[in-house]
């Protein structure tokens, strides 16, 4: 097991800067998820750690040793690319034992390790199968068993669940996380899927256009994001401009047009602010109930999503609010219904007004 340190990593392809001055430390045994939209530089980052790409500037250290100029096979890393890259002419067993064999392990040790890894990924009875005979989910698990059997100190996972069916993806999230926690390998996992990131990460790093925007423990980044982009990328946000005043008894009072709301204090901000609240943190009730703070509005769109209902509510001064309550709490709501949208003070986030406007601050591409 090993700590991984990236220091001032910069990588350019022609005129494009794929990674700009990345400083990032992943502790021994930690599971870090790098989250960002397509083209943010996530795969480049992984390939740099793996040794498949050499950075233009900066260094990569593993367990204190500078490995920047070392080829991939001299680094203690296992890299699982998006496409799995299983050996098609080898069976599941041969794929899994490949790496220990190459390293010259004794047959008995090798077999014990391979059996253990294949049992963990529930493929022990498919050892004789070839990759083409397996479903997508099985191939993914086989690739994972092979990566784990390499017994590397660092595991690099590039969108490991992307090619799978939606439902299987949900199931494998927990399995994969438990498995790696059990083995204790230092892991860097990149994905564009925020739910996957939140559920699996010890710490989360947000990458956008080659820049590292924020790194921190998952819950801290989720509940106190530093920028509107980070907030929105971790869960669909509503933003509205407001003027903030200190409120009696702590916190601030926000005035947005004729709407007045309470919010937690942010010492560094006063006057005009960009306020935001996640769609999942907004509540909804019939218009004549109104409890707590919020705004009146009319439901414009309704989409049933199973566990939650996704609503768009036209709410006067605050514009169109996206509201995603649990289905049990909002089954009654129909398009055209007058409603009261609850905006709990503790879930309101405040940011400085972005200089280029909120649209540009949120842009993913």
């Amino acid at each position, binding site marked *: 097991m090993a700590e991984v340190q990236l220091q001032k990593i910069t990588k350019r392809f022609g005129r494009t800067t794929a990674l700009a001055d990345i400083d990032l430390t992943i502790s021994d045994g930690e599971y870090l998820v790098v989250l960002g*939209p397509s083209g943010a530089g996530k795969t480049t980052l992984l390939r740099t750690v793996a040794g498949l790409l050499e950075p233009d500037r900066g260094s990569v250290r593993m367990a204190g040793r500078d490995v920047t100029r070392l080829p991939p096979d001299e680094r203690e890393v296992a890299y699982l690319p998006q496409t799995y890259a299983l050996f098609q002419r080898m069976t599941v067993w041969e794929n899994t034992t490949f790496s220990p064999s190459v390293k010259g392990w004794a047959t008995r040790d090798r077999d014990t390790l391979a059996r253990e890894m294949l049992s963990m990924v529930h493929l022990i009875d498919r050892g004789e199968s070839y990759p083409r005979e397996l479903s997508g989910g099985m191939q993914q698990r086989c690739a994972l068993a092979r990566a784990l059997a390499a017994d590397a100190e660092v595991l690099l996972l590039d969108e490991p669940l992307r090619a799978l*069916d939606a439902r299987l993806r*949900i199931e494998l999230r927990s399995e994969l996380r438990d498995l790696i926690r059990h083995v204790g390998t230092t892991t860097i996992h990149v994905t564009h899927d925020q739910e996957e990131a939140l559920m699996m990460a010890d710490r989360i790093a947000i990458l956008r256009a080659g820049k590292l925007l924020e790194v921190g423990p998952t819950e801290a980044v989720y509940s106190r994001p530093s920028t509107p982009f980070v907030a929105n990328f971790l869960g669909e946000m509503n933003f509205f401009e407001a003027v903030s005043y200190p409120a009696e008894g702590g916190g601030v009072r926000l005035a947005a047009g004729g709407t007045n709301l309470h919010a937690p204090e942010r010492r560094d901000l006063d006057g005009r602010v960009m306020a935001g609240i996640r769609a999942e943190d907004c509540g909804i009730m019939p218009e004549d109930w109104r409890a707590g703070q919020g705004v009146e509005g009319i439901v414009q769109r309704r989409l049933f999503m*199973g*566990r939650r209902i996704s609503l768009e509510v036209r709410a006067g001064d605050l514009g169109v609010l996206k509201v995603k309550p649990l289905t049990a709490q909002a089954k009654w709501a129909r398009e055209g219904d007058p409603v009261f949208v609850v905006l709990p003070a503790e879930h309101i986030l405040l940011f400085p007004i972005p200089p280029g406007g909120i649209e540009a601050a949120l842009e*993913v591409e």
Partner: protein
Amino acid sequence: MPRIEAVQVSKRFGPITALEKCDVTIEDGEYLSILGPSGCGKTTLVKILSGLWTPTEGRVLVDGRDVTDLPVEDRDLGYVFQNIVLFPHLDVWRNATYGPWVHARPTAQVDGVGREVLELVEMLDQRGMFPRELSGGAQQKVALARALANKAKFLVLDEPLSALDTRVRLELRYALRRVVKDLGLTAVHVTHDQEEAMSVADRVVVMRKGQILESGRPEDLYDHPRRVFTANFIGENNFLEGSVRRVVGAWAFVEFRNGYQLRVPSTGLLVGDAVVIAARPEWLTLIKDAFGNAIPGRVEARRFLGAMQRFLIRLFTYDLIAVDLPTSQRLNIGTDVIVSFPEANILVYPRPILGLQEALKLE
């Protein structure tokens, strides 16, 4: 506006049966989604419905007329594929109006249709751009516009959103449904994504291993799935195996390991029946005392879900279940808790003959 019907269609490839005696009807003006895991036969079924493939057995009817042997080009339908298929050297306008242009419609008519369909997908402003200048989501909108430009009344959407990033996918769902409803089309939409199926469609057909398991309105399928596979495939669920101890009126008492019991709705259950009960993580709550429909357990792990948190709780029946609670609730690992099962919501199924795991398998 057509009504499309497949009657007892089967499709075999050599020794492999991809589709086994499927019956499905898409009503006039209905948006139907076909949902299932990879390899379940959903793509085969839609290719037969659209005429790209002929079934080995069975018939396809459009408004009661047998079209089984009618090739796809003679059918009145628009097709949108998973892999975005646009002409790279044509701009948005020429891509969208390709159909009417090839059919040598009068210029005024081509212009009218082009405007109409590009306005519908909100791409008229980008009419001069080329596919490579557009994001994946925008390209798929143009592909949709092109399918609509043929003025077909039956729209076939074959995993239309699967190649796109999560965020874009969410945005396009609503656009798809709106366009289909605004134009009053009959549509069939194939997907493996249960949330997508539920949010776009009037009705969802669930498939597994070449067969149709059940179909229903999205909210009914979520709240009252008739098959145990559906209960797991759509949304998430906790399953407990037990046997019926007593039946009292509309309720049955099911006993689990260690003698714990839950009261569940009884629909024709008999004492001694082996059953599986299911309850979704967001339906469960923690209560202070053991009165009520509850089983005690101990918190084993916690997972962060963003707006909610998930506790994995080992019940004293030895079953490990997931309970989703608001993030405001504090609970330490190792704490003893009592999990309350809302009796009216609990789903009850006969225990599958080949075992629960086999019945839930996704692949």
